[in-house]
């Protein structure tokens, strides 16, 4: 088994999930079965292969430039409210589970 109960608890913590006892048991089983299947990637030698993070790495890129200049097509002038008006404060708070008209309201942040 690749993933242990401790791993499940640790990863749940990283992901800000609680998970009930039953969920942890199921997660342990599912993650191990999926990771076993994923293991087949190790059959491939990828030591000389570049990683691909984005499809756009492969088109539209100006290879004669360096760094982010290669993606010049994707840039635009930085102007305030150039593309879309910012949301009003009221609109931005509209969907909040708890807000006071000015701020989002959350439970106590500092615990002691």
């Amino acid at each position, binding site marked *: 088994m690749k*993933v242990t109960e401790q*791993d*499940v608890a640790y*990863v*749940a913590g*990283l*992901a*800000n*999930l*609680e*998970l*009930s006892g039953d*969920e942890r048991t*199921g*997660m342990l089983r*599912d*993650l191990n*079965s*999926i*990771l076993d*299947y*994923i*293991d*087949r*990637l*190790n*059959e*491939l030698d*990828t030591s000389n*292969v*570049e*990683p*691909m*993070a*984005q*499809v*756009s790495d*492969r*088109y*539209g890129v100006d290879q004669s430039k360096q760094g982010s200049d290669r993606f010049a*097509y*994707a*840039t*635009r002038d930085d102007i305030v409210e150039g*593309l*879309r008006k910012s*949301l009003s404060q009221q*609109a*931005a708070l*509209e*969907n*909040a*589970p*708890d807000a006071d008209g000015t701020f*989002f309201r*959350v*439970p*106590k*942040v500092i*615990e002691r």
Partner: protein
Amino acid sequence: MELSQLNVERVRSAIQQRTTTALALAEAHYAEIQKEDGRIGAFLTLCKERALEQADRIDRMAAEGKPLPPLAGVPVAIKDVMSTRGVRTTAGSKSLEKYIPPYDCTAVTRLEAAGAVILGKTNCDEFAMGSSNENSAFHPVRNPRDLTRVPGGSSGGSAAAVAADMAVVALGSDTGGSIRQPASFCGVVGLMPTYGRVSRYGLIAFASSLDHIGPLTKTVKDSAIVLQTIAGRDPMDSTSADVPVPNYVAELEKPIRGLKLGVAKEYFGEGLDEEVRQSVESAIDRLKNLGCEVVPVSLPHTPYAIPTYYLIATAEASSNLARYDGVRYSYRAPGVKSLSEMYRRSRDEGFGAEAKRRIMLGTYALSAGYYDAYYLKAQKVRTLLTRDFEEAFRKVDAIVTPTSPTAAFRLGEKSNNPLAMYLADIYTVTADLAGIPGISIPCGQTREKLPVGLQILGKHFDEATILRVAHAYEQSAQTGS
């Protein structure tokens, strides 16, 4: 007018010639939804006020004798992962059960600007994660062709809405096959454009490097018309490509004689249902009779596509879904005492089992000590999978495959086995990883009268060719020549 006979051009010309009105067509579709959707479950939210307002605008244009825009009066359903201003958008998740977006998705804006009438929002797997639509937090969707079976996923509601004549056109999203596989299961046309062809602005993110918006329609021509409307650079999405948009409808009529179609043995191996194989092989024969040359190609890394996909998609999902924190717009658990408890319990109660499974797998794959072995490894294999296609497309103009290894399966059949469910996407995920376009069109049915889909894959930004092949096949199959 029979709803089943409607397509984009018929709707527009009937309204232009005043033989019907956009209002009457919208009402007729709402009546059909009222009558049929109780047993299918394709819609989550209807936006009748917005629809009738738009219909009225189109009818006034027609009354004044003005030329109507390309999608005038066309009743459209939108997958509930695309934001609609003032209309609830849930992504099929309890965590967004009450979310009302303050802005529209670019694809929706463009459809409405072209005259489309948005009827409502369609059901889907939670955050578009699933292949059967059973992961919706609200209710499953049933396949209109056989109510004991799934419509496919994750755009199951969109596919079912079009298949059941509750909409003429629907938008879906495809991250691992979520437009093409449900199109195949429900017997409609589903197009995933090239990555970057259609803006993702306003699409609720699942896996940003893999997410695509595209149409589900009754005909290939409708698919071309809708793509024409939604394609093109959008400054609001920096990954939307600045590549010229051809006239897809005009390109449809070009002959397909002499085109080279690749067939890869990796897509006809173990796990492919015999009846699906027969339908797809006779579809390929038909294309050969239409003058295409069939060329064997090899896509040797295909068996590694599913594991690659489930690392990259889950890694990106774990990061994208971090925003559902119960603070700004998502579900907050009641009675929480501290901030950290609020995060954990809100996410625990707001997400369903599959979303949590993918967050966990993705977080694990990105965590210290495992990043190189899993995430980085998958990114490298993604390069190999993409090179397979680049190599093949040096020899052929398009590649033809089955869309899915089986026809629609039964509700509950795979819901307890995540890995079996993942394998339903085995022929579709690779195109998402490589960013190439793909279309699924109906190509016959099984003995149990379940639709089978033919998938046609193309080169980056060459939707025109796959649409042209699909159109020629469809026309030929309809006339039975």
